[in-house]
């Protein structure tokens, strides 16, 4: 069960990122969306006291934010990586500003100790997601057009299909899924911490490349990363200092990237 728990945020975020990857861009703002939705969920839950309202309102706001992000990026013809970074930066600014305004703190927001948040349904959603994504991408009209958007914009334009719709919707889907990942993290901790996603958004991006942009590959990528995470939690009990453990996922990610690209080079040379 531990491993599924560790896997869920990675799976949600990286499968979400896969949609933008198919549409031909990279959503660098996954990290920001995870943190933002965790913040929104905890804030709304704390104010209204309703579990259902917390999730729906948080997701609606995330949809709105990701729509603004992608609409502006497409319409202004901006560089999507830079706007993604801008969204990350702006979200962190917004979060601490709103947090300071509402709770007069820039740190952790706690819920009451007795609150029980049922997060098991998100684990199930995350585990079904790769298969569902495979179905959507390969069998439905939306999925096929999404993939074509990534390959050639002109094909869609000549078929009288709005290409911008597919890019914008892909960013929204990835925003929602990354948001669910963030909400899951917030539920697990029953609180909001300023750096709650702790690099998971970035690692999810790398998992997409590791899994060769394929849902099943991504599933195994998530598996590897959650095993290393559990291992690093385990090694915390031993004498390894925490800063070194924090550096570990980044180094591992880089090594994984090098190893996968190396095989690619070999394949080409054959």
């Amino acid at each position, binding site marked *: 069960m531990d491993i599924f728990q560790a896997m869920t945020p990675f799976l949600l975020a990286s499968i979400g990122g896969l949609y933008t990857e198919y549409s031909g861009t990279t959503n660098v703002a996954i990290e920001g969306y995870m943190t933002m939705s965790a913040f929104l969920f905890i804030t709304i839950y704390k104010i209204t006291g309703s579990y259902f309202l917390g999730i729906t309102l948080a997701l609606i706001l995330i949809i709105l934010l990701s729509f603004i992000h992608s609409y502006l990026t497409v319409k202004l013809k901006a560089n999507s990586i830079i706007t993604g970074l801008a969204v990350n930066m702006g979200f962190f600014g917004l979060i601490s500003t709103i947090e300071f305004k509402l709770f007069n703190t820039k740190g952790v927001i706690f819920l009451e100790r007795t609150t029980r948040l049922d997060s098991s349904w998100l684990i199930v959603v995350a585990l079904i997601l790769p298969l569902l994504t495979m179905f959507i991408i390969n069998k439905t009209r939306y999925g096929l057009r999404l993939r074509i958007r990534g390959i050639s914009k002109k094909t869609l334009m000549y078929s009288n299909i709005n290409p911008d719709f597919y890019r914008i919707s892909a960013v929204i889907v990835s925003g929602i899924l990354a948001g669910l990942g963030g909400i899951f993290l917030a539920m697990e901790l029953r609180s909001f911490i300023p750096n709650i996603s702790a690099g998971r958004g970035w690692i999810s991006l790398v998992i997409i490349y590791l899994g060769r942009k394929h849902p099943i590959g991504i599933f195994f990528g998530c598996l590897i990363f959650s095993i290393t995470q559990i291992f690093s939690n385990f090694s915390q009990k031993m004498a390894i200092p925490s800063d070194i453990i924090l*550096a570990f996922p980044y180094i591992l990610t880089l090594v994984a990237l090098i190893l996968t690209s190396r095989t690619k080079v070999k394949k080409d040379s054959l």
Partner: protein
Amino acid sequence: MIRLFKHPVILILLLILCPTTILIFLLSNDPLLSLTSFFSGPFSNTYHLGNMLNSSSPLLLTSLGAYIALKSNSFNLGGEGQVFLGATITALLSVYFDRYANYGTLGLIILIAIIATGLITWLSAWLDSRYHVNSLISTYLLSMATIHICNYFITQKFLKEGSNILASDKINDLYKLKNILPPSTLSSGFVIALVIVVISSFILKYTILGYEFKISGRNTKFAHSMGINSNIYKISGLTLSGSLHGLAGVLLVLGNHHAVIVGFSNNLGWNGLSSALLAGSKSIMIIVTSLLYSYLDSGSNYATITSDLTIEVSTIVKSVLFFVISSKIIKEQIIYRNKK
């Protein structure tokens, strides 16, 4: 009149003014006080002006570093880590070898810091050319890892005793850069940074070396067919960018804080990147844009002290700016049409 509004500088100033004003009116209970302290705060006295200029001196170097990486057609997203690595090496080595404090040692320490940061980005560039690992990702990952490892050395090995912030001991007085505008903290580092920016933009603009460098970044195939070894320029561009970030870290220690503090390079890398993007094609514009960015930061710093704003206002304004400066439409439709 309308033509005047379309001038890039005016446009950018408007784009800073509008979101800031809106944000302040939304967030503050006393908007007028906050507004005046945000915009006029940095110029209110010598102290604040000097501090603003001082905080811009490492930013000048990071902007130049990011600019050079951009010109060699690669992104250096690891500025944060490189600045921090440069600062950590300078502070920790000068504390550790305090017994041998003289200018020769200082030179050696600075050299080590520059080489180490250069090596980190060289690794990214090499991985890019050898294994096709995108330097955009590898620079970021390496920088995050270095930040954590540097934190380890500061907090576990060199932590100042009895201090309530996570910082190392102060460096030797001999190493501190001269203060040129008391009572503020403005040090001669500002002049050094300015000179470096001017010299490098001269090299980029007027020498064959700079020309070849720019051409191989802009069109690799053309450069290659003209007999320019564009791969070397690409790798050296990223390496140089890392070294400049490291030098910014050195200045941060010698001129601003005199010690290394955990998390004190806050946003220097990102600000450098965005001010380099803002500078566009002219490298000398880096001076203007870096000053603009530190003006925004110190404005929000000042407003935090005097009114009820939070320090993150400048972050939000900067993220709006990011959208605008990376936009092709605005460049094509407004700025270039204006030039015709």
